């Protein structure tokens, strides 16, 4: 005899539950998620977690190896490396957040213009994107520094500008394909305005893959910031940044390996964490993005 009761209505799973459930199947993804969470928390709570002031000199003997007083040792001015690494993490996360949000916003705007606007505008924008992409990021950054001078803002500007073409191209392709999609034509036949079309129909389809790609770009952004700061073109002293720590370490590399280790390990961990997390996100939410590269 069949049951006459109907199953209770189950709302479709939210993104969070899909993510958590999918994560269970991806071991590297879980590792990435844990790493990223730890890094973000460490960045947010850096001032409370640092045993010393990151800019205070001579808190201990210079270039000392790790000890119970200084978990990662000290640099050439006696500053505690662990505190500096935490503070550097803050800078790195800040640059990543600022630069990527700027790049995403501008990329989405320009991509929509290119995809939905007139043909000549599309060609012009594509040309500009290709031109930007043929600059090595560092060379572009150095050129900008010549004009503007080194600062945190310069780094954010450089990273944002060089990331815009990537996102804009993706949005452009999506916008072009949606332009002639049936549901869009139907909406327009019913008199939907452009903002409504964009906001409710185009953007939600497009933002998901974009955010996943952005999370996979974080390692590159952080490496660029560290690189520019290493060359003295980025964050100004006394603000610590992983690149600045590495530069100090490089200058004293024959005296002690610890500053170099202290500056480089966070970079590698961040790269691994965000790469694994990004790949897991992509596998869970949009396996179509999986390509050979």
């Amino acid at each position, binding site marked *: 005899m069949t049951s006459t009761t109907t199953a209770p209505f189950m709302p479709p799973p939210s993104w969070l539950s899909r993510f958590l459930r999918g994560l269970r199947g991806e071991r590297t993804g879980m590792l990435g998620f844990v790493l990223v969470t730890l890094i973000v928390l460490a960045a947010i709570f850096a001032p409370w977690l640092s045993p010393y002031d990151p800019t205070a000199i001579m808190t201990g003997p210079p270039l000392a190896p790790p000890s119970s007083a200084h978990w990662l040792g000290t640099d050439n001015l006696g500053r505690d490396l662990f505190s500096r690494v935490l503070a550097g993490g803050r800078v790195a996360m800040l640059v990543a957040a600022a630069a990527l949000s700027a790049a995403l916003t501008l990329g989405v705007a320009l991509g929509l213009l290119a995809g939905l606007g007139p043909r000549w505008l599309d060609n012009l924008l594509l*040309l*500009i994107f*290709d*031109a*930007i*992409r*043929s*600059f*090595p*990021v*560092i*060379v572009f950054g*150095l*050129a*900008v*520094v*010549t*004009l*503007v*001078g080194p600062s945190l803002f310069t780094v954010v500007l450089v990273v944002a500008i060089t990331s815009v073409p990537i996102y804009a191209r993706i949005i452009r392709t999506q916008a072009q394909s949606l332009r002639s999609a049936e549901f869009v034509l139907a909406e327009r036949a019913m008199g939907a305005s452009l903002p409504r079309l964009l906001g409710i129909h185009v953007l939600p389809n497009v933002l998901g893959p974009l955010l996943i790609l952005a999370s996979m770009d974080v*390692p590159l952004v952080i*490496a660029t910031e*560290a*690189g520019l700061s*290493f*060359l*003295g*073109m980025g964050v100004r002293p006394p603000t610590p940044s992983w690149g600045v720590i*590495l530069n100090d*370490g*490089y200058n004293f*590399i*024959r005296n002690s*390996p610890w500053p*170099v280790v202290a500056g*480089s390990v966070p*970079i*590698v961990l961040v*790269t*691994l964490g965000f*790469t694994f997390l990004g790949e897991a996100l992509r596998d869970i939410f949009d396996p179509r993005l999986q390509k*050979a*590269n």
Partner: protein
Amino acid sequence: MITYAFQRLLLSALIVAVAMSLLIVMLHVVPGDPATMILGPRATPELIAQTRAEMGLDQPLPIQVLDFFGRVLRGDLGTDVFTGRAVGDIVFGQLPYTLVLIAVSIAWSAALGILLGCYSALRAGTWLDTLAGIVSVGTLSIPAFVMSLYAVLIFAVGLGWLPAIGAGEGVVDGLVHLILPAFAIGISWVGYVARMVRASMLEVMSAPHVRMGRAFGLTQARIVRSYILRIAVQPAVTLLGTGVVHLFSAAVFVEVIFARPGIGALIVSSVNERNYPIVLGAVLVTTVIIVLATLVSDLVVALLDPRQRDAL
């Protein structure tokens, strides 16, 4: 094929033109004035005005852009602000070092990467494959300049096996001095190339024409050589073409860390001096080389696989 080559050539020239124009335009949109930067905070307004006139900064923007290109086409890349030497001489004097470094890095990493990728694909699923995969991901996560620092730390400072400073005298010494820098630049590419070649080989290995070949009794070696390799290598070539951009970035760091001569080191030192003409000239030359490299790699890909000649 010829028309495709022409089209790409034209596009490349256009890209270089746009890139340089962007740079010059940025000069005006962005706050800060090169003349003030060069002269420093104690410069008088008259001195600034005079320097600006000398550098041609007081002319309207389109004139400046055209002027720059006019001079470039005549072979004049400007003159160094401090020493008065021609920028072209300085830049082209340093260029060979960078080119050698990049060429050697590409050569060894492409060779090893393709070999590793092929091997991984043909022995997919074995422990060797998994090991290669882990090593690839590991080396991918380490930026070139971090790798250089570790190379110096381990091989030069720690073990003392290899030199860490300069480019060396003569061919043999030069090559020895190239070992660590080329290793640092190439190591992350080996992983990248290997992964790509492995993925595309696996794709091609299950394609119909390959299965036909096996059905007809061709040996594995023959199939790999004549059919699979051509197509599988293609993403690696594209990768290296577009990767020249990243390679240049890596070269900048490597030249600074290993105190080698080259365009990267030149740009960094000129930026520190705010030597605007050299920066502009060096960036122009770099951009031209990169665009040329991308062009060549696209043409090689089109040669290997005619299906890839897409419309512009």
